[in-house]
């Protein structure tokens, strides 16, 4: 702003204006709120760039879209269960008794111009919001971004995900259509199953018997004020911590644990992230334009004696629905009381267990690895085989439960016995994760081996040479310094936090049982990993003369590393131009 500066210098200086020009908004604000200090923190703050860092942004922007479209919808939606007789443009429902909530949703869909679009954008962004949070969480998990000092942000993120799921359920229950009413009926059954206080909770929540006449208005305030308020507060805390701790970055040339490399907040990140908001909004608007979602007029108003076959909740409830479907029908009767394990476990315990495991994971991993250092460089998932295996196991369990939530759809579409699918899933949710854990862990270790090979022996050039004896071998060329560093910069096995159980004289160290368990877990955690080569090993490999000579019949991966050995001008590898 050259002109402003000029006018500032030309303006007569007074003590009051502290030497800054009157009418200059920067000075005006700086005098009052210390704007320059804020700018110092913000304007050139560095944000590392990677496509996977965009997932959280999608979640953030979907939330903003939800606030915008939700506010629009609230201008017409009537959160009331009072019954009216419908007379409106949707002739098929004329004369039908329905709640005002359902009628006003019809009104938004048919009478308010753009109302249907906003409803559909709202519903699509809700689905995207939770999907983006879920995938963002997986990214954080698999790259170890939850490690110190970011454990608190991990917990806040879990809170956001859990509240997001509740918020979504509350939202699609509001229109009081047949599908959402069925969902609420199921929720009512779950609340009822809670031991001791279940029926009391049910009667307090629904203001009497299900469905009652107050629930929609109560749910409405939860949906538009209570949960969004908490979400907003948690999102703010999430962002403040992100700013304060600075974003993590991938390993790479120039990246260290003490710096952050990337684009400045202003203008690059502002333009990219700001532009991305419009992209996300644009995509949801196009989805709302061409892909129908939740056509409540086709379901009809809620009637507790009706249901549609093939009823499905929104996608993020699918795993809980699946748990409800495959749970064996266990119920205990003790001393005149009933405990409905068949409802209680899938309805309350499954979600509780998953979120508890996720919440304690960073602390558990830190305890086992004994790694108390700050981590700002992300792990490549292969370099943490056990963590990656556990993550894949979790995804498998979730995915199987989710599939089980559609067991009827699978049965009718693929002509498989519903009972067979259900029985398969009952075992698969336990066996599947174990299998995928083993596969993923071994896969990660294989990738480590492949990395080690690349580092020691270079990459396969695809050029085959024939020796005078008639043997064939492939020329390997060393990696560029950048790629080699990317691979080689992974951490060595973090130091054991507990002393070895026996000292060098074979005397058992005194330790608590917990420390012994930890020691054993530590061994299991890092067992089978391929150690990263040392500088000496690398040097050795690069100057290694294979006893069989440079040309290998077995096609083994010893290869030819040094340019001198192959004598080719094009593969003068010692003088690789990439350096």
């Amino acid at each position, binding site marked *: 702003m050259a002109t402003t500066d000029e006018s500032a210098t030309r303006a007569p200086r007074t003590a009051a204006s502290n030497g800054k020009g009157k009418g200059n908004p920067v000075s005006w604000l700086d005098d009052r709120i210390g704007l320059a200090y804020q700018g110092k923190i913000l304007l050139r703050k560095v944000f590392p760039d990677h496509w996977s860092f965009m997932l959280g942004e999608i979640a953030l922007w979907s939330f903003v879209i939800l606030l915008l479209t939700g506010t629009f919808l609230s201008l017409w939606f009537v959160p009331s269960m009072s019954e009216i007789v419908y007379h409106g443009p949707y002739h098929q429902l004329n004369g039908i008794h329905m709640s005002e909530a359902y009628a006003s949703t019809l009104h938004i869909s048919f009478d308010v111009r753009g109302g249907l679009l906003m409803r559909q954008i709202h519903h699509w962004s809700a689905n995207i919001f939770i999907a983006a949070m879920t995938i963002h969480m997986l990214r954080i998990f698999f790259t170890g971004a939850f490690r110190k000092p970011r454990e608190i942000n991990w917990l806040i993120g879990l809170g956001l995900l859990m509240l997001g799921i509740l918020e979504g359920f509350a939202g699609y229950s509001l229109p009081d259509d047949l599908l959402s009413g069925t969902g609420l009926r199921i929720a009512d059954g779950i609340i009822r199953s809670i031991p001791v206080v279940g029926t009391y909770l*049910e009667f307090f929540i629904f203001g009497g018997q299900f469905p009652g006449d107050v629930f929609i208005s109560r749910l409405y305030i939860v949906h538009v004020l209570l949960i969004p308020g908490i979400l907003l507060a948690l999102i703010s805390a999430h962002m403040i911590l992100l700013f304060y701790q600075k974003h993590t970055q991938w390993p790479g040339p120039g990246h260290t644990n003490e710096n952050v490399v990337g684009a400045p907040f202003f203008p690059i990140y502002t333009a990219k992230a700001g532009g991305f908001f419009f992209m996300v909004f644009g995509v949801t*608007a196009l989805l709302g334009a061409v892909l129908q979602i939740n056509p409540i007029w086709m379901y009809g108003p809620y009637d507790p004696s009706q*249901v549609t076959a093939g009823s499905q909740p929104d996608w993020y409830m699918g795993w809980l629905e699946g748990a409800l479907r495959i749970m064996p029908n266990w119920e205990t009767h003790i001393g005149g009381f009933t405990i409905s394990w068949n409802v209680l476990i899938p309805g309350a315990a499954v979600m509780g267990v998953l979120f508890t495991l996720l919440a304690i994971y960073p602390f558990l991993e830190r305890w086992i690895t004994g790694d108390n250092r700050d*981590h700002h460089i992300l792990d490549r998932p292969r370099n943490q085989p056990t963590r990656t295996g556990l993550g894949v196991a979790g995804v498998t369990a979730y995915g199987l439960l989710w599939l089980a939530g559609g067991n009827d759809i699978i049965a009718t579409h693929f002509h498989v016995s519903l009972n067979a699918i259900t029985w398969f899933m009952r075992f698969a949710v336990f066996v599947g994760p174990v299998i995928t854990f083993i596969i993923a862990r071994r896969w990660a270790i294989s990738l480590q081996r492949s990395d080690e090979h690349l580092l020691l022996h270079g990459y396969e050039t695809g050029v085959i040479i024939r020796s005078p004896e008639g043997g064939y071998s492939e020329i390997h060329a060393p990696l560029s310094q950048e790629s080699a560093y990317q691979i080689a910069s992974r951490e060595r096995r973090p130091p054991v936090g507990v002393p070895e159980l026996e000292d060098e004289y074979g005397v058992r160290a005194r330790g608590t049982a917990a420390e012994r368990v930890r020691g054993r877990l530590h061994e299991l955690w890092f067992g089978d990993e391929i150690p990263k080569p040392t500088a000496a090993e690398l040097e050795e490999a690069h100057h290694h003369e294979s006893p069989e000579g440079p040309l290998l019949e077995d096609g083994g991966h010893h290869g030819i590393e040094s340019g001198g050995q192959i004598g080719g001008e094009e593969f003068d590898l010692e003088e690789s131009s990439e350096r």
Partner: protein
Amino acid sequence: MTEGPHPTDGHPDGAGHDLAALSPEEPIPNPGLPPHEPRPTDVDAAQERRAERQVAGMFILAALLALAFCVLYFVIPPPSDQSATFMGYGASNLALGLTLGLALLLTGAAAIQWAKKLMGNQDIIEARHSTASPPNVREEQVAAFKLGVAESGFGRRTLIRNSMFAALGMLGLPAIVLLRDLGPLPGNLTSITVWKRGIRVVNDVSGTPLRPSDIAEGQLVNAEPALFFDEVGPNGKVIKAKYTGTALNDQKAKAAVILVRMLPTDIKSAQERAWGVNGIVCFSKICTHVGCPISLYEQQTHQLLCPCHQSTFDLTEDGKVVFGPAARPLPQLPIMVDKEGYLVARSDFHQPVGPSFWERG
């Protein structure tokens, strides 16, 4: 990081280590940030102008689409006019959605293209400050807090402290007690329905009373108590439905039933046969799992499948569960025929309908 003893209590400054810098064993030194590669737009003026035109073009198109949105908003009839369609889509929703969506998308794309092609793209490096405070600051603040605690006498004046805890603790109670009027106590409402002796079992849509002859063998009829419908009394006077509106829904959620007619010999349970009329039996329609209405009837096996979670009930044997997550059989409503030959209830259900609950026993 070299192997061997390592302090696990972390460094007070919380800083991690530049591994390459610390360990001579690291195979590859950090080569540092690669030199900035100029983009085509940095070196070629023609490319730069082209990118400029692209960005501005997208912004202008977005502006025009936003205008088009406003025009179409007024031109196209609202979705209530269901004849206004375009290729099977509602015209209004499609037109507004496409213009708005594309306007937003182009605005975003333009901003991102601007950043990618034209804004300076030199990576910059910022040092990370330690997340933790410097040790002296931490000590100062811990000392300040301790001073505050000492000055307040929080540790010393235990009477004040404990009475404060009592006050704060007790103040939580009104917050809970205030919620008492959220709803009535359950009482026996979870165990009873509106069914009682003599109430007719009527068709759930038309409200017409049913005679045994109205139900064919292998047929399932969704039914409800006559109290839910206006009735024409014996003297031709209309008796208004006892339950309407939300009260009706409350009762319907418990009292909905199904009638099924089987060959009496197909019914395995003697009690079930006795509670029916000539092979017509009446069961609760509300699933004992989590309360979905059950309506998928398999004629050959006389099994009833819940469409929500696929609990399957055998109607030939007291509605027992043969598959799925439901634990309890479907409650049966004992029925008989009244003087006029219509099906009526003989009593209420003998056990609570719907999902289980703690006090159920």
